[in-house]
């Protein structure tokens, strides 16, 4: 057994290239569209709170509820509910059987307790598992979409038709549980690319779904994955045929809308031999004082020489400053590098949710395959995040790279949990992990749990970790140049997260940087 274990402690880490002026500003995510001009100095002492506690005064800016008549299941979970959902969606018998199998298995499972998070017990019978916004017509074009819903999109800033014209990003929006509008389909279908809602895929492409669905995340994989399989309402399906390079970023917008609905979406991306796709997922949720459960499953499959790049910008409602409400985000994301020379890359910017439980992983099965995980996780106020990745080296000459940047403020807790596993047969496996934590204030926590299992002595596994605090001297230096504290924190944090932000598709990088700044508004005074 051979592994190299380096723990390195560097100096204070700060933030970076916020307003790179060459970036084109594209407004895709309302989630991130906020007046930066409000960043000015309201710092200092508010109500006798320390500047750091003022972090807590930062309000969620996307909490609005759309009034669309919804078509809901009764509260609670049972075989009948599973049947109701399946029937609502007009699913074939095999799909219902698949769901029921998952449900029956779920009944026998226990909720995992090992993560570094605390929350009151979830009452699974108190949740509405299906809520579909009522559509009067089946939209063939965006113009046919319910005007109320379109206003929601406008508030979200993802006016689909505007995007169509301006940005060349194909968006498949999911409001609550049903996929609403799929744009760009025609252009994509000419290349043989399938990009549609999961419900539609089950109807239109049953062979592909039967073959690949739950082939990466089995329905019995874990508690939340089993729950998702039983009740998932919709999601996206994306299929890139052999040798095709998808010419645009594909994007799905998830948003939890109805009260007491859990959102259980399910995404499957299949990249055939020699193909390439870059996919972006963004999320927001309206403000509620109750917690909402969100348990998604994402599966990625890359065949020989294929590459999948999956980026997430997650901005679910984090709860209020006292820690009431907010989304419980229990997500299973896994990709398999099935073929030789294949590559899967996860990039995530996680700023929302009261609780985040999420470990996007890669199974490196094909020889020479590459897995990457780039993560920025911000926690503020009472947020808790336990997130990281799992890299499973099985094929020869497989490589993985992990870059995790955790930023904690307020009284939040931010944990990195990662596993690098090198199989007996994985000759010449290489892993490099870098886990950096940045603390804003002294009431928050940063924790790192790196697990390494090496079963082949040709492997080289490196791990570096640093923890730093935003220094008063850094803030003062910025102040002395005319930069107020809010802006200084934003500069420092973005510098800290730069390596990850650089992985985001260009169009989203600027917005994601703003989102970081907004999430931390008022955290340091």
């Amino acid at each position: 057994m051979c592994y190299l274990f380096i723990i390195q402690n560097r100096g204070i880490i700060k933030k970076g290239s916020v307003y790179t002026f060459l970036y084109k500003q594209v407004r895709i995510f309302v989630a991130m569209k906020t007046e930066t001009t409000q960043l000015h100095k309201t710092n200092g002492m508010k109500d006798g709170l320390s500047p750091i506690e003022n972090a807590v005064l930062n309000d969620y800016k996307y909490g609005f509820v759309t009034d669309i008549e919804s078509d809901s299941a009764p509260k609670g979970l049972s075989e009948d509910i599973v049947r109701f959902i399946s029937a609502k969606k007009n699913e074939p018998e095999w799909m219902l059987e698949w769901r029921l199998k998952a449900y029956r298995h779920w009944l026998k499972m226990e909720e995992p307790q090992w993560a570094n998070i605390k929350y009151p017990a979830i009452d699974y019978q108190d949740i509405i598992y299906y809520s579909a916004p009522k559509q009067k017509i089946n939209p063939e074009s965006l113009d046919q979409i319910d005007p109320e819903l379109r206003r929601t999109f406008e508030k979200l800033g993802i006016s689909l038709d505007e995007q169509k014209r301006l940005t060349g990003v194909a968006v498949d929006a999911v409001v609550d549980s049903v996929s609403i509008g799929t744009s760009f389909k025609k252009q994509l279908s000419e290349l043989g690319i399938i990009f549609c809602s999961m419900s539609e895929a089950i109807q239109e492409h049953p062979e592909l779904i039967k073959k690949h669905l739950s082939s990466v995340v089995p329905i019995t994989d874990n508690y939340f994955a089993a729950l998702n399989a039983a009740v998932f309402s919709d999601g996206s399906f994306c299929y890139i045929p052999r040798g095709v390079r998808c010419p645009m970023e594909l994007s799905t917008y998830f948003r939890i809308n109805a009260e007491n609905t859990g959102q259980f979406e399910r995404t499957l991306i299949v990249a055939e031999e020699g193909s390439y796709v870059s996919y972006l997922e963004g999320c927001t949720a309206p403000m509620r004082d109750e917690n909402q459960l969100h348990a998604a499953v994402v599966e990625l499959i890359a065949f020989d020489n294929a590459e999948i790049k999956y980026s997430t910008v997650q901005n679910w409602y984090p709860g209020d400053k006292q820690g009431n409400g907010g989304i419980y985000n229990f997500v299973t994301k896994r990709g398999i590098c099935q073929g030789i020379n294949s590559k899967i890359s996860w990039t995530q910017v996680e700023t929302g949710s009261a609780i985040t439980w999420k470990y996007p992983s890669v199974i490196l099965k094909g020889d020479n395959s590459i897995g990457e995980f780039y993560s920025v996780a911000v926690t503020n106020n009472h947020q808790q995040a336990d997130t990281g990745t799992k890299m499973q080296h099985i094929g020869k000459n497989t490589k993985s790279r992990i870059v995790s940047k955790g930023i904690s403020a307020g009284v939040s807790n931010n944990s990195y949990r990662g596993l690098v596993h090198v199989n007996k047969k994985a000759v010449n496996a290489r892993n490099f992990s870098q886990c950096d934590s940045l603390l804003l204030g002294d009431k928050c926590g940063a924790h790192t749990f790196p697990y390494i299992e090496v079963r082949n002595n040709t492997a080289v596994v490196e791990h570096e970790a640093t923890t730093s605090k935003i220094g008063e001297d850094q803030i003062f230096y910025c102040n002395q140049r005319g930069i107020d504290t809010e802006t200084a924190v934003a500069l420092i944090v973005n510098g800290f997260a730069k390596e990850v932000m650089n992985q985001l598709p260009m169009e989203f990088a600027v917005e994601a940087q703003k989102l970081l700044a907004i999430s931390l508004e008022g955290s340091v005074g």
Partner: protein
Amino acid sequence: MLTIKNLQAGIEGKRILNGINLDIKAGEVHAIMGPNGSGKSTLASVLAGRQDYEVTGGSVEFLGKDLLELSPEERACEGLFLAFQYPVEIPGLSTTNFIKTAVNEIRKYHGEKPLDAVGFLRLMKEKMALMNIDQSLLSRPLNEGFSGGEKKRNEIFQMAMLQPRLAILDETDSGLDIDAIRIVANGVNKIHSKENAVLVVTHYQRLLDYIVPDFVHVLYNGRIVKSGTKELALELEEKGYDFIKNEIDVTEQVG
């Protein structure tokens, strides 16, 4: 431009400045000299508004405003610039982005529109030529891995970019070899004009060969104990600080 009256300040209950009086007019160059620990950096920090220090008495007027009432960023926007003795590093933040943010924040304060990319690049090019600074340095993360000399040059470059009314240089010469000192001093001289003033804080006289002061003040134990013209610096150089110390300590004992 700057009028300091009987300024007293300290940190954590410890008195460091014991009544400073100083008057600086537009167009002047003042030098403050003094042994280590006499309070030079403290004075610079208090003027720039560092919050760790507590002002316990006295007043400071800057361009007609009560300086002590302003936040550090407001002081900067009003035209006060401090070239730090120990510039901080900000990993990941490109020096260019940092300076662009600073330039535009100051413009915003004065109700001006931000400079666009073209305007900013033009200004950068002009000042880079003036300061003899390399583009590659400016695209690196702020001060990260910079040599001592590079950090100091970066401070002076920022000063050129921000065009302050009063620049305080805190031991900008320390740790520099003679060539680097000459470059930095040249930079300062190029920007100096009738409209702005410079306060040079230094331990050694040699910087004053290049930045010639109109007035020299000696700081000792948190007080300006002697003021004069540039000849005073030469006298200090020749006799060392001990001669001042002895003079003062004797007077104090007698008093």
